[in-house]
């Protein structure tokens, strides 16, 4: 049932498909710096790009993602707004209609709901409503997820809301390199993109990021690790405990585990999921968001639709529970970690 073959194809967050040739020089960046690089690249090369959000200019963003950009580009390109999420999102509608390309920061995904109606009622619909006459090319970026001991509403993961909304793309990077590439791709997209940044990963590690402009397609998952015995499907901040669990399992047991990093939750890359699970026959899905009706549920549906006869075991989901994300005294216990993931993987392997 098992094989020891396991290949780490590329560094965790790569899978880049478009890269301009050039000096090939790289820098070791964490995710914050990589995102900053993408924003700088966008502001420099496209004069329709404007950044807007609370505290992004003078204060450089509460996580410093927009560091230095006000200085470089001025207050007509990097705009500090009053405290009003609906006006940021709704105002972005007007900016986009006029031909600008707004890249909005919502300070935390938990406060995005103050603007949700503008996204659902208009941003996701203007193209469809006007049969393409108007479009909403914009990015709404926001830190999401737990793991930094923040107060209530600062650790949310509701990607399911966006995945369920027609007319939106939803992208969730897992590391510096893919964050930079995907943010650039999102900015260039003719359609609105919700860009969830795993805040637990912001400064967690560094990796090589090309100095030159690099993008990757939205809607394509990345096989972060090749294997034959089981597929783990995950995304965002959970990629790190997933890979940690896999290292531990492959060290101890003679199995090889394939890891699929979704990167994009809408569109979801059914083909990569199908190909992997058809090969391995076993699957564990990991996300920190609540279990019921989460992205995992959609992935299970697609696996059953496309790969049922290849399954050797039921699909397991290792997720947050159907409760509110706890205040941070209970956070460490709550978030799925490598041990919980490894336990589920072993159970599925043993089925």
């Amino acid at each position, binding site marked *: 049932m098992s094989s020891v073959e396991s290949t780490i194809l590329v560094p965790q967050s790569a899978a880049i498909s478009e890269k301009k040739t050039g000096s090939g020089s790289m820098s070791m960046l964490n995710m914050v710096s990589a995102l900053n690089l993408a924003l700088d690249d966008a502001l420099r090369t496209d004069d329709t790009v404007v950044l807007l959000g609370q505290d992004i200019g003078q204060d450089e963003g509460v996580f410093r993602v927009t560091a230095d950009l006000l200085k470089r580009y001025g207050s*007509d390109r990097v705009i500090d707004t009053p405290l009003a999420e609906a*006006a940021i999102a*709704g105002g972005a509608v007007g900016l*986009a209609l006029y031909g600008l390309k707004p890249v909005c920061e919502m300070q935390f995904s938990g406060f995005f709901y103050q603007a949700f109606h503008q996204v659902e009622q208009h941003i996701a619909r203007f193209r469809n409503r006007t*049969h393409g006459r108007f479009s909403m090319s914009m990015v709404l970026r926001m830190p999401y997820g737990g793991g930094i001991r923040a107060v209530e509403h600062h650790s949310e993961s509701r990607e399911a809301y966006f995945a369920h909304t027609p007319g939106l793309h939803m992208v969730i990077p897992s590391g510096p390199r893919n964050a930079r590439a995907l943010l650039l791709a999102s900015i260039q997209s003719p359609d609105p993109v919700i860009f969830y940044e795993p805040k637990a990963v912001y400064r967690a590690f560094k990796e090589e990021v090309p100095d030159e402009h690099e993008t990757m397609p939205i809607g394509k998952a990345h096989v972060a690790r090749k294997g034959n015995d089981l597929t783990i499907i995950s995304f965002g901040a959970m990629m790190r405990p997933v890979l940690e669990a896999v290292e531990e399992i492959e060290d101890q047991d003679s199995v090889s585990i394939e890891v699929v990093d979704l990167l994009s939750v809408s*569109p979801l890359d059914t083909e990569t999921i199908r190909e992997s699970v058809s090969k391995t026959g076993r699957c564990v899905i990991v996300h920190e968001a609540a279990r019921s009706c989460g992205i995992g549920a959609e992935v299970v549906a697609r696996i059953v639709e496309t790969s049922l006869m290849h399954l050797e075991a039921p699909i397991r989901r290792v997720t947050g529970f159907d409760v509110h994300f706890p205040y941070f005294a209970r956070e460490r216990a709550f978030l799925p970690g490598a041990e919980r993931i490894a336990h589920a993987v072993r159970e599925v392997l043993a089925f």
Partner: protein
Amino acid sequence: MPRKSIKIKPTVQYLSILNGKGKLDEKLDPRLDPQQSLSIYRLMLVARRLDERCIKLQRQGRIGTYGPCRGQEAVHCAASFVMDKDDWVVHAFREPGSFYHRGWPLERIIQFWGGYEEGCTPPPECNDLPIAVPIASQCPHAMGLAWAMKLRKDDHAVLCYCGDGGTSEGDFHEAMNFAGAYHLPLVMLVANNQWAISIPREHQTASETIAQKALAYGFDGIQIDGNDPLAVYVATKEAVDKAKSGGGPTLIEAVTYRLGVHTTADDPTKYRSDEEVKKWEKLDPIPRFQKYLVETGVLDDKKIEDIEKGVLQEVAEAVDRYEAGRDVDPLDCFDHVFAEMPAELVQQRAEFAACLEREGIGKGH
């Protein structure tokens, strides 16, 4: 230190030029070109007759629930004449005259109520937003457009329509606040028609006027007789000129009345008196303007009759064109969700096509 008053700018004027009896205040006469006055009159009549026809179409099941603008024609018809091609007009949902004046074919206005997305597409080069169904949700869009104009240093302006009910929504507040904070070229024209379905104006807010809400956002508000096309024109022109010359936003409260139902699904007898309606019928903008134009020799009986005939003809032809275009392909609800259809949608579209074929459903409505 003893208590003292903080002086705030107490600028809320009231403007009325042509009163309810059609009598003009000479001192305030904007001396519009007679041709322009005639055009405003005709446009109001188009809005009125289209409205009446749409109510009939709804009763006949040829369109869905319809929201009439009866009584409010002066607000959007007169204001439209102030805006030029490069300006943007952001609509609520009771401004058929504005759409028509800005270049939308009449049948497209009917299409919206008939259940067609086609009714939401402005003609090419037309800087308009379609009907916005969620109340006041269009206010931040208008603010964003004005914001873009300012960032691009274009001296255009944005005219945004909203109702008295809409001024209670958070979107109205947030848009106005940004407009003031950024000093944007936005003219917010609130048609205070006294009713938000069954909620009367007095119940909507404790502010004595809607116009004064502008003061809280740091800019000027003006209240006008919204059934007086001349006052609407003058107030809008002043506000738009001010916006275009860097003077920032203005809130105009146009006091008018919803003579008809909220929509054809509504029964106003449940919440308001016939007496009140009759009182406001006497202040109807169209007869008053007609009277004034007759007195100033711009209109006579013959012209009135010709215009009436012409308007009815236009409306009838628009209904014919609407009917001719009613059959549509259900499959095209996939075609404009994204710029490029993702794989999952391509699959689902094929699945839907198979369903339609199996169920024997082709083009239709």
